[in-house]
Structures are given as C-alpha cells and as structure tokens.
C-alpha cells in the first residue's frame, strides 16, 4: 500500500516523462546556458589577450631604434613593415601600422616635435584595444622623453605636469573572475523556474483543461495530498534541471581559457555539492508558485501568460546584486532567491558560509513553498474548480 502523495508523484513523473515537447522546452535551457557562458567569456578573453599578444608593424623602425627597443622592453613584439600602410589596413592584412618619420633623429636633435603616425581603421572594433594600447605607450614614451629634455635644461619635470590621472583598480583578479562567475548563479536560479514549469502547469491548468480533475478528486484522498504529489513531481524536474545547469556551466567555465588573461578558476567536488544543497530548495519554491498560478488558470495558455511574468522574478535579486553589490549581511540568506544567489557566489568564490546560512535560505524557500502549496490545496477545495 503506497501513500497517496507517492501515488500521485509516481503518476505525474510517468506522465511528465512522456511529454516530449515539455521535456524539450524544459531541458533545452540547461544546455543552452553553459554554451552562452562559454562563448561570451571566451569572446571577452580573446579581445583582451589579442591586445596583449599582437605584433605591431612599424614602418621606418630603423630611424628610431631606441623607441623600438623601448617598446620591446614593454612586451610589445614589433615587425619591420615596408609597404603601403593604408592598403594593408583596408585589406585587413594588418590592424594598424606605426609610421616613424625619416627625420626622427634630426628632429630629436633639434628638440622639435616628432610626429609618429598610427594608421588604423576606426570602423573596426576588434582592433580598438590594440590601437588604444599603442597610443598609450606612445604617450608614455613622450612623457619620459619630455622629462629628460626638461631635466637637461635644469627644470623640474613636475612643472609641466599640472594634473595627471591616476587609475587605481582595486579589483583583484579573483574578484574579476567572481564577477564573470555571477552568470552561473543567475542561470541556475532561472533553471529552477524554467525546468519544472511544464509539469507544474500541465498537472494543474492542464488537468483542468482536459477535464480530468473531477475524476481525480472523487478518490478518497485529501486535496493537499494530491497537490503535494504534483509539487514533488515538478520539483524533481526542476531540481534535475538546476543540477544539469550547474554542472554544465561549471564544465563550460573550466573550458574557458581564463589563464590567458592571468586568471585562475578552480573548483572542487565539495563546492559543487554545497552549491547543489544551496539551490535545491529553490526548486520547491519555484514550482509551488507555478502550481498556484496553474490552478488559477483555466487553460494551459492562460497559465503560461501568468507564469511568463513569474519568470522575471528570480532574476531581480541576482541582477540587483550584480549592479549594486551590497555588503553581505546574514539576514540576506533568509530572503528566497537572494539567499541562493549569495550562497552560490560565496561558494564559487571559495568562501565558507556557516551552516546557518544554508539552513536559513533552504528553510525560507521550503516554508514559503509549503504556504503556496496549502493555498493551492484550498483553491482545489473550491467547488468552482470543477464547474469551470
């Protein structure tokens, strides 16, 4: 003899497992999200490392061997270029060409301004980082030489520098990685809402729409038991979706060549387990809300339009904390969705969260989910649920 909740759970899993269309739409997400993470991060890294690795073609490098050497001391690879600079750039053979004038040495001796040309195609966004870098280097070189010229005349170089910019980037490399990693919690939280939705809606609004609810409710079972069976079934789907998203996103992160920009990403098995524990309760909250909206709706389509709005909800705390990082406080773990986001960020950043943090976030989700389930059960008690 099985408990009614288990009977309903088994039936919904069997039914939902055969719903190919719903499965497809639910489980496309866990495969799509990691691909997005991978391609976006790889693209960012390529842009950055391209600027570092590129070889700078210099026309007339023989006129300024000291400048070329100065560049090479700053990790810039140079090549001797001899040809039509405009042509090679328009034909996209080179990103840019630096042209040193023939009278470089003469102007240097006469203490005149030396025009160094940087030829590039302003319409090409991919060459912008390299152009910006070479401009920065030339400006720096100018600064150094000017100082030497002033010192030669007995003037303190400080005189010519009224105001200077000092950029201080306090973000450590790990923090930059953590920011990149913010996408993973976002996707995992979204997965909770996407992957269980099909089953949650089908077993509520769908059951009403195909008029199978009346026969179901004639059975000698408490209404809350029916709803809980459906709740556990859709939460099971949501949990699988979240776990898949989490594991695949991490696998994608490991494939991203972070080392090319000098960053490191390590993850250990226990961190993955902690992240699974941190996010699983959210599956129960997400599906409980979907069941409630589903039982309100009279048809599948009706339900989907309500639930579409619901899917924006989980992104709010994640996006908010991405753009407005708040100082972490313990109460935040108890806020459903925000708590899960914070836990994931902390665990990914290899920080330790006290067990109370996991308990608070898990319990708040589960209890709130329970409230929604009981409200749903009350709605199922209404007489109008069968009459339309």
């Amino acid at each position, binding site marked *: *003899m*099985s408990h*009614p909740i288990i*009977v*309903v759970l088994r*039936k919904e899993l*069997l*039914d939902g497992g*055969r*719903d190919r269309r719903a499965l497809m739409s639910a489980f496309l997400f866990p495969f799509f999200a990691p691909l997005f993470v991978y391609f976006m991060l790889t693209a960012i890294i390529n842009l950055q490392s391209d600027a570092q690795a590129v070889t700078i073609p210099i026309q007339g490098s023989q006129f300024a061997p000291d400048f070329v050497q100065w560049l090479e001391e700053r990790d810039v690879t140079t090549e001797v270029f001899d040809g039509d600079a405009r042509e090679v750039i328009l034909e996209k053979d080179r990103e840019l060409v630096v042209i040193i004038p023939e009278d470089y040495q003469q102007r240097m001796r006469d203490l005149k301004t030396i025009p160094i040309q940087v030829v590039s195609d302003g319409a090409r966004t991919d060459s912008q980082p390299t152009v910006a870098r070479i401009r920065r280097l030339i400006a720096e070189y100018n600064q150094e030489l000017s100082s030497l010229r002033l010192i030669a005349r007995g003037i303190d170089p400080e005189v010519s520098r009224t105001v200077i910019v000092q950029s201080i980037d306090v973000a450590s490399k790990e923090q930059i990685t953590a920011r990149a990693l913010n996408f993973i919690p976002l996707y995992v939280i979204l997965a909770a809402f996407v992957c269980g939705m099909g089953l949650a809606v089908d077993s509520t609004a769908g*059951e009403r729409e*195909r*008029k*199978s*609810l*009346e*026969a*179901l*409710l*004639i*059975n*000698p*079972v*408490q209404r809350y038991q029916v709803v809980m069976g459906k709740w556990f079934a859709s939460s099971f789907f949501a949990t699988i979706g979240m776990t898949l998203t989490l594991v695949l996103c991490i696998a994608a992160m490991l494939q991203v060549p972070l080392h090319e920009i000098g960053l490191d990403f390590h993850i250990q098995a226990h961190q993955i387990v902690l992240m699974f524990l941190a996010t699983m309760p959210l599956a129960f909250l997400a599906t409980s809300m979907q069941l409630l909206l589903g039982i309100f709706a009279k048809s599948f389509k009706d339900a989907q339009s309500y639930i579409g709005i619901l899917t924006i909800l989980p992104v709010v705390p994640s996006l908010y904390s991405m753009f407005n990082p708040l100082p972490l406080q313990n109460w935040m773990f108890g806020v459903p969705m925000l708590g899960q986001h914070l836990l994931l960020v902390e665990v990914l950043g290899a920080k330790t969260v006290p067990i109370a943090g996991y308990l608070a976030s898990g319990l708040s989700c589960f209890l709130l989910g329970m409230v929604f389930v009981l409200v749903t059960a009350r709605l199922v008690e209404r*007489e109008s649920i*069968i*009459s339309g």
Partner: protein
Amino acid sequence: MITVTGLRKTFGDIVAVNNVSFAAENGRVTGLLGPNGAGKSTTLRVLYGLLKPDSGEASVDGIDIVENRIEAQQKIGVLPDSHGLYLRLTAREHIFYFARLQNIDGDRLEANADRLIRLLDMQGIADRRVEGFSQGERMKVCLARALIHDPPNVLLDEPTNGLDVMTTRKVREMIQELRKRDINVLFSSHLMHEVARLCDHIVIISAGQVVAHGTTEQISEAAGEDNLEEAFVKLVEKVVP
C-alpha cells in the same frame, strides 16, 4: 445504499436542487431521470463529494458524505460528468492510478484489472496510450477505473451519452452484472427508453425537484398515462411552466 434527504443546492441566485429526497438500494438499479439542466449532475456531484449541499443530508452506506467525505468516497465508484483522461498514459495505467488512490494494490489489483479488461472487451487497447481512443474506448477506461476497487455503490452520470450501439450494449450488460452482484447502481439519464428498460426504480427530477418516483408502472399510473414517456412529459410540464 444511498439516502438523500431534503437536499438543496444553490449557485448564487440559481436553485439547482431543491428539497430532493430519494433512496437507492443495493441489488437494484435506480434511474435519475430528468430533462437537461434538471439538477441530475448536481445531485450526483453532492453524492460523490465534490459539492457541499446548502441543506439536507446525503449518506452512502450510512456514512454522511459531508461529514466523512473520504470514508464515503471509499464506498463509491463514479463515472463523472466529465470524461477527461491523461493522453500519455495507457488504459491500464489509468486503471492502476485510480486503484492505488483507492488504496488497492498488488495481486488484488492485478486480478481486478484483468477481470474488468475482459469484461469490457478491452484486451486490444489495455496497453495502448489513450490518445486517439474513440469515445467508446474512452468510456470503457472511465468505467474500468470507476469499478476497479469493487465499490458497493456505483454512480453513473449519463453513462451511454454519445456512445455507439455496441458500446451502449456493453454498458447495459455491465449494469445488469453489477445488479446481480447485489451492488447499488444509481445512474442519471435523459433517455426514456434506457431508463424504462434498465431500472427497477425511477426518480424523476425536474427543475431541481423530485416530481415522481417508483417503478415504471407506478409512475405511469400516478400520471394517469399508458406509457412512461407520456407520464414523464406530463409530470415535467407540471413544474416547468
């Protein structure tokens, strides 16, 4: 045994059932006869626990359906008004699902399921998904899942509605079979000939009220007509101006 006393049910301003009383006994087929919208489905829905009456009492084998819904629901097998099925489940999976919700499992379930599948000629469709079933095949699934737990009381809401001759005969055979096993069968219909043919006891409902009850002969006699149809029309017209 089902007893209904002074049942009244309203939806807003509409009085769907007004002071309905009757009894349906074991080993007897009781027909709830009435025109469309007379209150037959509402009466049955109160009996199988989906609607709460405003006043009056309804009990199944002495168990009050409002006070002890779950206990009463264990004593009934129901073919409800709506015949919705789960399209991705097979006929047998439907039967098993409802059996387990009725707390029947194991050998007894297997044996009952096989017996019903044979009885309803469902051998060819038992393990097919119900998507694409004809109306008759769907009705058989609904009947089988209603009877899987050997209920002592069977409630059927318009059981032959929209069925072909072959399936209609199967349903009638089923009803006869249940009566032989001393089961209480209560079914609603608006089809005169069906009620006349199958029922031992007829309750005529019109505009939410019982206008006559008894055997075919008793009803005809009370209305002063020769046949049930004339009697029915006469009785119904009395309450519906």
